[in-house]
């Protein structure tokens, strides 16, 4: 049901039954390399184009998640997925392989949590038993679609992001599992006037802050209720900006505020510039690195705030600024759900 202005509460607490993450070579060489389910050394995935590689990545991730849940693909009632490419060809073609009903979604790099939020909604409201949610991105498809041909010698500034080659998928459903989804806050489009595509972190930070503030207000929770608040891809430039903006609004996050784009790559990976981005960044880090901390008992609750920049090549060419959005999902251990999981 809706609570407050923008937040959904899921009383039945849809469970995370399993996850699947599949990444490329650069992500596999990063600090989280061992945490991912599948790591591939060939960015082409043995395919004849980058686009085919991207959908293959998602097919493998969704397949892994479904098998880990002990299910067959036919048991999945609904797939909710998206990617960065025009017309969502990667996730749509992967759904063709899966052969199950599809709800395609898009909010750029915030797609993953938009998908998880809707998956939780369908399960909580009884419209589905098992839902597969996820998102995928690929460095080369993003480069050639939105920036330059991959072999072009353009020089990127230090504030640039590196689109993650990775796919993250999760199976949500009712049943016995340690982690559940309790709340989702749907973001509003926020535009603070940044227009340079090299300044995505600064463009998206206000959207992340707006959603975090709205979530806390709607649920009556405080930062202390969460072990971590993880934004999707603000990276090394946007993260400190978000911390400051939150402090201005009276929200003192301290070290609880983390970022999936910062966690994805090591400081020694210079081609990552300020950090990871892309629809695949947030789900890969969340499912492979953050949720296991809840499963192991180290954490009780994490708020994952995926951030997306809603521009296109045409809007940028026409001199428009970059409107952004952030969608938040609260993942909690089942004990935490039964104690104090209700909003005040």
């Amino acid at each position, binding site marked *: 049901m809706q609570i407050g202005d923008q937040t959904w509460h899921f009383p039945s607490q849809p469970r995370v039954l399993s996850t699947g993450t599949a990444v490329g070579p650069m992500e596999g060489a990063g600090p989280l390399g061992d945490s991912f389910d599948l790591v591939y050394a060939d960015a082409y995935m043995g395919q004849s184009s*980058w686009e085919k590689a991207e959908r293959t990545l998602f097919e493998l991730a969704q397949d892994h998640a479904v098998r880990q849940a002990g299910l067959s693909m036919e048991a999945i009632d609904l797939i909710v997925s998206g990617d960065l490419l025009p017309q969502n060809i990667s996730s749509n073609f992967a759904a063709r392989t899966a052969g199950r009903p599809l709800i395609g979604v898009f909010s750029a790099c915030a797609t993953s949590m938009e998908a998880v939020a809707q998956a939780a909604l369908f399960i909580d409201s009884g419209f589905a038993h098992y839902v597969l949610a996820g998102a995928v991105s690929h460095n080369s498809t993003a*480069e050639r679609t939105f920036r330059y041909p991959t072999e072009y010698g353009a*020089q990127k500034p230090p504030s640039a992001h590196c689109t993650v080659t990775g796919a993250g998928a999760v199976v949500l459903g009712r049943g016995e599992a340690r982690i559940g989804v309790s709340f989702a806050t749907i973001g509003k489009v926020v535009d603070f006037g940044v227009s340079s595509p090299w300044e995505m972190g600064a463009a998206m930070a206000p959207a992340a802050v707006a959603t975090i503030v709205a979530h806390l207000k709607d649920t009556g929770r405080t930062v202390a209720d969460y072990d971590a608040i993880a934004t999707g891809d603000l990276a090394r430039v946007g993260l400190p900006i978000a911390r400051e903006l939150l402090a201005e609004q009276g929200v003192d996050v301290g070290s609880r505020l983390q970022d999936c784009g910062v966690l994805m790559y090591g400081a020694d990976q210079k081609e990552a510039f300020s950090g990871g981005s892309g629809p695949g960044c947030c789900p890969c880090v969340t499912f492979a690195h953050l949720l296991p901390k809840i499963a192991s008992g180290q954490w009780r609750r994490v708020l994952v705030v995926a951030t997306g920049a809603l521009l296109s090549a045409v809007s940028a060419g026409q001199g428009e600024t970059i409107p952004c959005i952030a969608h938040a999902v609260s993942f909690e251990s089942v004990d935490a759900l039964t104690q104090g999981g209700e909003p005040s």
Partner: protein
Amino acid sequence: MTGVWLFVSAFVVGGLICVVGQLLMDLTKLTPAHVMTVLVVSGAVLDGLGLYDPLIRFAGAGATVPITSFGNALVDGAIADTRQYGILGLITGIFEVTSAGISAAILFGFLASLAFRARG
């Protein structure tokens, strides 16, 4: 310039033209494509003012290798044909001098696409 000094001036002049391009890219909002366009037009204007040919005599490849020389070559072609054919020569002559550059770029670019694939 001749001999060793020609190599020195080629290095320095070529390097400086690149620095101009770098400053435009770093200190303004211009993209690489904008900067190349500015440089090509600059080469054309400098040749119109009679300043580019002396630069070539001074710096050799330092003036002919940067993209500015493309603008210079286009203007040379246009002017040469106006001397022969009058005002219509502006249109007939533009690509005459620079055909090697354009043809080579198209040809070798296409051949490369036959032989290689993008590596990401």
